[in-house]
């Protein structure tokens, strides 16, 4: 990050952090586990595991209803986690945080609301070429339902969004810009400040897909002035099946209910139902309470780490991995954006990504291979797939060395 280059940053105690993650002590194929698939999902620290376990052992009850003591406990844990998440994003108030099943559901919630109330034939939604399928398909569905059109802003060869094209794409009929803060396939950090400035200059709201950015980049929704922000707990050291949508109060209040059921109502008769206030209006049914408790623990875990030191550490890892991989004959890194975080995607002349993944796995090195749910990016580079190493706070230079050494094994078999 630009700021961290100006100030001396405290170093990250990687060994100490590793000790928080029990799974990292588990050997794979007789080797030390080198987990480099963090962009798919991160491992969970003992603080998160214990919070979930403790919830079920000591506080389990349904929330927001019964008058008994346990229900009060559970409700407080649930709503405290909402405050933790709001703080994590620097939201104005906890009511601007809706718990969802994950980033995908958060985006679908907004897309559903837009399709039913804000979009019509001729209207446009603008996305970028960098998007994960989860920030493409909900908008395609919304467009199909409403007659609106999806416009796609291209990226250049480095993997950066072409800002002039973005400016040109936002027009009279643009109803929303939906953009990733960080590409899961290439690691590109998008210039959110400029994107939001361009969109707001034309009174167009912006939804930020922060699934990848959340564990790596500080997110301040007030400083960004984004209108919606979606992310998942499991990519930031929390449990699977839980995530959040941030939305400005006025926008959240204007969205129609997403699902109907218990929890989301104020009163129900067969003639008429009135809905609960935000955010509960969007949380139909008994929620994933344990997941929310784990999410809160993950947010607190990450917030307790010096984020500048973490960013500097992960940037140094990307730089070191780039240096080591660039030195391997026949290997080509895909995506060299001006600003990148935590992801190195690559292809090899010698072997297909899938073969690379299998060979590395036998060394205990876990990477992702495939299209990374971002097929348009693969098409943009004319490749069917890449191998991707993605870093988390417990990764060190030794992990990059294991990756590079494993790639030498690929050359031994396929060279």
């Amino acid at each position: 990050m630009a700021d961290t280059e100006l100030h001396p940053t405290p170093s990250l105690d990687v060994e100490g952090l590793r000790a928080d993650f029990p799974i990292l002590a588990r050997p794979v194929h007789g080797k030390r586990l080198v987990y480099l698939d963090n962009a798919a999902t991160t491992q969970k620290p003992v603080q998160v595991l214990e919070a979930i376990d403790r919830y079920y052992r000591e506080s389990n009850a349904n929330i927001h209803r019964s008058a008994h003591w346990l229900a009060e406990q559970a409700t407080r844990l649930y709503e405290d986690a909402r405050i933790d998440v709001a703080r994590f994003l620097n939201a104005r108030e906890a009511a601007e945080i809706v718990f969802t099943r994950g980033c995908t559901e958060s985006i679908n919630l907004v897309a559903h609301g837009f399709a039913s109330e804000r979009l019509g034939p001729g209207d446009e939604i603008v996305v970028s070429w960098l998007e994960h399928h989860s920030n493409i398909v909900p908008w395609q569905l919304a467009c199909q339902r409403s007659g609106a059109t999806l416009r796609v802003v291209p990226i250049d060869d480095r993997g950066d969004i072409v800002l002039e094209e973005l400016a040109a794409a936002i027009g009279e009929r643009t109803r929303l810009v939906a953009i990733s803060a960080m590409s899961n396939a290439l690691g590109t950090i998008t210039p959110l400040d400029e994107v939001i400035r361009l969109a707001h200059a034309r009174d167009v709201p912006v939804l930020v897909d922060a699934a990848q950015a959340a564990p790596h980049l500080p997110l301040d929704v007030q400083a960004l002035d984004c209108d919606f922000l979606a992310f998942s707990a499991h990519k930031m050291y929390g449990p699977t099946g839980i995530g959040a949508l941030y939305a400005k109060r006025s926008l959240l209040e204007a969205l129609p209910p997403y699902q109907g059921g218990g929890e989301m109502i104020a009163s129900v008769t067969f003639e008429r139902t009135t809905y609960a206030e935000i955010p509960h209006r969007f949380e139909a049914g008994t929620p994933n309470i344990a997941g929310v408790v784990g999410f809160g623990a993950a947010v607190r875990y990450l917030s307790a780490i010096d984020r500048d030191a973490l960013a500097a550490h992960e940037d140094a890892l990307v730089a070191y991995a780039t240096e080591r991989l660039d030195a391997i004959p026949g290997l080509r890194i895909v995506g060299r954006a001006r600003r990148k975080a935590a992801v190195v995607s690559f292809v090899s002349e010698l072997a297909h990504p899938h073969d690379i993944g299998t060979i590395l796995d036998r060394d205990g090195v876990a990477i992702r291979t495939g299209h990374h749910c971002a097929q348009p990016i693969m098409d943009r580079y004319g490749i069917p797939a890449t191998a991707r190493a993605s870093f988390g706070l417990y990764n060190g230079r030794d992990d990059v060395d294991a990756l590079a050494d494993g790639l030498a094994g690929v050359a031994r078999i396929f060279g």
Partner: protein
Amino acid sequence: MSELQDLYQEVILDHNRTPRNFGSLEGPHREADGHNPLCGDRLRVFLRVTGDQIEALRFVGSGCAISKASASLMTDALKGRSTAEALRLVETFTAMITSAPDTPVPDGIGKLAALAGVREFPVRVKCATLAWHTFKAALDASSEAAGEVTTE
């Protein structure tokens, strides 16, 4: 390292490097597309059946070493056979590749035995079977309409 050596045997690496019967087929033929969305493997299998005999069998596409070698070995193994024989071999091969790793490899499958190492790598089985599923789809396809299969 030994399981990796079983997987990437010289026969596999050779057919991956220089796939046999690679390219499209001119003239009347049937074809089908095979797609493994998980890893992006794409194959197109072309065949010409004269009477009851598979007279020509070719493929194009891109994919991992296992999917390419399997497609190449398949074209060699099925070309010239009767359709009934070919379908029997498809069954034998599919049963072999999805069997437990320590199951004996059936007799009479020739070079296809080289693919038995895939059994130690369950996530790679789909790579090895893609061409075979696609072959069956091509056989079922009429000459007008191309079929499509996916591993998902």
